[in-house]
């Protein structure tokens, strides 16, 4: 069981490594969106500090949204996906492996880079730690939920916008608890409850979305 999971993760990481530019694009998008906000609302430090959790979280969310369309696209185009569906290994496991690899390639860099942007927004040190932690818990949930949308819109025209319409409502709880954790910490309320709920979001996404994604892939490839 675990062997197939790691095999899928290894394969996808290898493929991503051969196309490093894609990873960089997502990351650059994240940084650019987050940097546009101060230009839009003005350089006032207090305002930026209160806005920072929301801005950084929404940027991370949009970056995920932008890249998640690619989750199954390449495998769909070259027919690998069909082979995966035909294989005797459980499809949910393959899907989980693909999402894990996807998160390692796009989610993890966001988590690593976020503190830097937090400094740009003049967040206090404790809040920056919470920001990293909340992104580390939240971006996997975003990747998992995004997988459902990516599978459903596979090969459709206008897939990108449709994907946004489908999965943005599902991102609401993650956004609320993720950004809320940072905000609560900055306000001195303690981020524990938010982080626990964020963890609950992640775990329920982990339970539901590989199944839903696998079902959606079967529907799309029928």
């Amino acid at each position, binding site marked *: 069981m675990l062997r197939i999971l790691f095999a899928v993760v290894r394969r996808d990481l290898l493929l991503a490594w051969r196309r490093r530019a894609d990873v960089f694009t997502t990351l650059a998008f994240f940084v650019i969106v987050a940097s546009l906000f101060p230009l839009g609302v003005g350089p006032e430090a207090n305002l930026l500090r209160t806005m920072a959790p929301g801005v950084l979280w929404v940027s991370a969310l949009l970056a995920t949204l932008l890249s998640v369309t690619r989750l199954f696209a390449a495998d769909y185009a070259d027919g690998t996906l069909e082979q995966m569906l035909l294989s005797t290994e459980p499809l949910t496991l393959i899907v989980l492996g693909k999402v894990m690899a996807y998160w390692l390639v796009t989610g993890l860099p966001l988590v690593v880079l976020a503190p830097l942007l937090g400094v740009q927004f003049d967040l206090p040190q404790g809040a920056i730690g919470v920001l990293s932690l909340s992104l580390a818990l939240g971006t996997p949930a975003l990747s998992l939920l995004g997988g*459902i949308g990516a599978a*459903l*819109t596979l090969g*459709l*025209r*206008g897939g990108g916008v*449709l994907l946004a*319409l*489908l999965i*943005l*409502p*599902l991102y*609401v*709880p993650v956004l*609320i*608890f993720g950004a*809320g954790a940072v905000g*609560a910490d900055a306000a001195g*309320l303690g981020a524990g409850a938010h982080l626990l*709920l964020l963890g609950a*979001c992640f775990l*329920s996404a982990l339970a*539901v979305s590989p199944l*839903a994604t696998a*079902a*959606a892939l079967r*529907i*799309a490839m*029928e």
Partner: protein
Amino acid sequence: MTAPAKALAEKLPESRGGINWFKYASPQTFYPLAGKLIPLFGWPALALALVGLYLSFFVAPTDATQGESYRIIFIHVPAAWMSMIIYLAMAFWCAVGLIFNTRLSFMMSQALAPTGAMWTFIALWTGALWGKPTWGAWWVWDARLTSELILLFLYLGYMALVAAIDDPRRADRAGAVVALVGAINVPIIYFSVKWWNTLHQGASVSVTSAPKMASIMLAGMLVMALAAWAYSVAVVLVRVRALMLERERNTDWVAQLVESSR
């Protein structure tokens, strides 16, 4: 998943305890039944709406604190109820369709979606018009309002996905996955927004602490809700009939229907 469903369907005619429901699972038999049901729901809807309007404007007294603007409640609350009930019904038919592999179930949920979206829009619109004289703002980020807005997005997402897929079989099933995932999410969204709202005390306006409602107001609201329900059933049945004809235009039963109506 479909094998037990088939076994069940085969067994059912023998194990009858009244009507064989699976008989109406095929468009061919459901089409005439729906045709007969439409007036049975449509005319009562009109009658109930008239009674409800009479109750809400001429019988229900002026509210002591809100004045006349509270009369919006007589459509706002039924619209909000309908928006949620229809989403649940949609998710229910999607689940039935996935489990029993009946194409009529998917058509039902696709016929329900536009009406549900309409009620959601009406609930939001009347909510804004009620909020302005009551709280002084067209929109507050209250848990219910925000959840209702997200519910509208869920409806739009479902309809957009179904419309974007050309293959009807794939459209049915993909839509069903979205509707079901959305149905799981609706309560989570509601509670997360509620929690978020209580933490941001600044803008919060309590909608929950409504004063105890006079029974005549409740009666008006219930009659209006029944009217909205009967109306929705009638409209959805007309739409599902249109969908059936569109989808099954190459089948024998549609050909016979067209033949006999000439």
